[in-house]
């Protein structure tokens, strides 16, 4: 019994399957095996994934500083304090702004890039693997490069702007400018990653669809929007969700942009680019090492992410199904 026998279901075979012996083993296999397939994952996951989460939820209800031994129970006090903190809302606003600025163009570009990579190219492997170079580049190199680009006094972009007569911009000082710069950093790093995911998904789109479209005279762009996008819709939904989830937890890029030191953690002198993850880090891993408060921040972030993911999911689902 090989797979080859199953490929071409003839009409006769398709209509009404002849009754098979419903052996116990077969029924067991049908109903129980899914659980077996997910079991390895869940066992390990419950131990090393869920337990830490439950622990941090528990800790968030206490006044828990790493360097102190007393951890009194304080109920929801951490949450109350957090929601009353202006800096929390500031971080939330920054995070959402950076999310939108970095994700929307990034996914569009990734889509276009994957489409280009999907065509027959010379040096395919080269181009395709080249997409991952930004992810392979070390964090240190990224920090150095982008401070060379966006540096106030000696940066390349300011130099170009100076030549064009526009005048220098203090990228770090402004809110909008810092968000743009950070979004560029994020886009640089992750566009190729998403392009590769789209590319893998595009492989399951049969070539003959493109061929017939080309014969019909459809341009490359139309093929992208009319054939590819609808067919890889689940992957697009996936990347939107993943980008939302991880985009709201952005940490490394703003920290590097701020120079990595104390100013990196607070997201600039005026917290103009402090994201929620940096806010969490500031309270949990710096200063007073307030583990309880930081845990509360983590769970509030969870709520924010759930809401954002749900909103994006509904948006994308609607748009795609109408195309």
């Amino acid at each position, binding site marked *: 019994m090989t797979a080859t026998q199953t490929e071409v279901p003839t009409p006769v075979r398709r209509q009404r399957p002849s009754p098979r012996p419903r052996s116990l083993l077969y029924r067991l296999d049908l109903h129980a095996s899914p659980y077996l397939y997910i079991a390895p994952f869940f066992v390990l996951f419950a131990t090393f994934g869920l337990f830490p989460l439950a622990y941090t939820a528990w800790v968030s209800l206490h006044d828990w500083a790493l*360097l102190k031994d007393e951890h009194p129970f304080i109920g929801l006090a951490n949450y109350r304090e957090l929601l009353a903190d202006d800096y929390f809302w500031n971080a939330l606003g920054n995070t959402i702004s950076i999310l939108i600025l970095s994700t929307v163009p990034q996914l569009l570009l990734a889509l276009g890039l994957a489409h280009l990579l999907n065509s027959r190219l010379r040096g395919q492997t080269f181009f395709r693997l080249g997409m991952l170079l930004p992810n392979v580049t070390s964090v240190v190199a990224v920090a150095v490069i982008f401070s060379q680009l966006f540096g106030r006094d000696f940066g390349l972009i300011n130099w170009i702007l100076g030549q064009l007569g526009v005048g220098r911009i203090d990228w770090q000082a402004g809110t909008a400018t810092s968000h743009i710069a950070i979004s560029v950093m994020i886009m640089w790093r992750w566009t190729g990653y998403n392009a590769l995911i789209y590319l893998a998904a595009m492989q399951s789109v049969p070539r003959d669809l493109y061929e017939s479209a080309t014969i019909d005279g459809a341009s490359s762009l139309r093929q992208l929007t009319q054939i590819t996008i609808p067919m890889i819709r689940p992957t697009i939904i996936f990347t939107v969700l993943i980008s939302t989830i991880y985009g709201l937890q952005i940490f490394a890029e703003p920290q590097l942009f701020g120079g990595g030191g104390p100013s990196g953690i607070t997201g600039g002198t*005026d917290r103009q680019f402090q994201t929620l993850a940096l806010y969490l880090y500031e309270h949990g891993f710096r200063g007073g090492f307030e583990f309880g408060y930081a845990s509360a921040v983590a769970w509030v972030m969870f709520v924010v992410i759930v809401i954002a993911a749900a909103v994006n999911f509904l948006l994308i689902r609607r748009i795609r199904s109408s195309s």
Partner: protein
Amino acid sequence: MNLHSAGAGRPHVPPRRPRLVRGLAAILALTVGGAGLAACGSGSEPGDETIKLTINLFGDFGYQPLYEKYKELHPNVEIEERVAEYAAHHTNLAQHLATGSGAADIEAVEVGYIAQFVAQPEKFYNLLDYGAGSLESEYLPWKWQQGLSKDGKSLIGLGTDVGGMAMCYRTDKFAEAGLPTARDEVSALWPTWDDYIEVGKQYVAKVSDSKFFDSSGNMFRAIVGQAPVGVYDTNDNIVVGTNPDIKRAWDTTVRAIEAGLSAKIAAWTPEWNTGFAQGSFATIVCPAWMTAYIEAQAPDAAGKWDIAQVPGGAGNMGGSHLVLPKQGKHPEVAADLVKFLLSPENQIAVFKEKGNFPSLPKLYEDPAILDFSKPFFNNAPMGKIFAEAAVALKPQYEGPRAGDVMNTIGQGLGRIEQGQQSPADAWQQVLSDVQKLT
């Protein structure tokens, strides 16, 4: 939806599976084996006397040659030094202390964090139990104090170096501005910070592509470091709002900002590095440990830097202690090693290599220190200058979150520099931010 219509080229399924399964099994076996080996390797063989000590630092303290010397004296002691980045090092230490495992036998703690850790004396070995008491008379009193617990009964940390301040300046830039360049004359220019600001105004009037100092944060830190009381009183209350010296330091710094003297470059950033090389600022408050850094940053500027007195009198910036977490298994040997590393000859050796200035005042009269100079700094008598700075400074109590408080104030100054807030508003925000740190 006609997915099967292509006809030819059915997915022929070759028997890849066995190979794949074999490969996975091999990798899993490797893991288990690897984990097993690692677990085996971490224990010590029974019956031998080798003692292994671990020491965690946040930078190169110049101790490597000292470990060799120690091993000659004590062949059965192995020393393993691990270095992590400054912030990560201290965070890790806090985590390891909280979870009760993972700290090294000896850890370095910088002055910005020492008060927090000293507030937990039960987590560390009391060095007084290991014969450190006899060293008290050799140390600068305030440095000794910093390592003592609140009740004075436990010595948690033994001081490594101190950060007596001086003012490093670019002689060529000063010449450009028509200012004197010889270090005694330069020191005479600014006995107070207000004089410093005046000189700065002269400087920026004459030199267009450069400012007088790197960032207001550094200047503020220096001025505060010279006051008898800093941001904390001895009862661990934050006194930023009530301490007139703090306000005075703030106002002076604001005046300097408003005079356009700041290059507005945050310290330790890539721009700061570039600033050194490009001469973006003519002066910088430099504690002893910073001199090695300046040298590495701008080798083309060798001979153009010199060292003068800092305005306003002596003050401290930086310095570290070595502590022994209670998780260590060999406190006697570890304490012995610490005393060795911090012995007078070794502190001199480290100074010569790394520029970290000793915390033992009797060394300040040692010719090895007094005669020390470097061509990079125009052969300034660095030893003498920093010795004077270290002796003259008045001790200041550093409370538990002094580092954070200073950062917060520094950010307020940064907001003024970047034009985000007026000085008055920035001060108000600093006060309210600092309240949150209690």
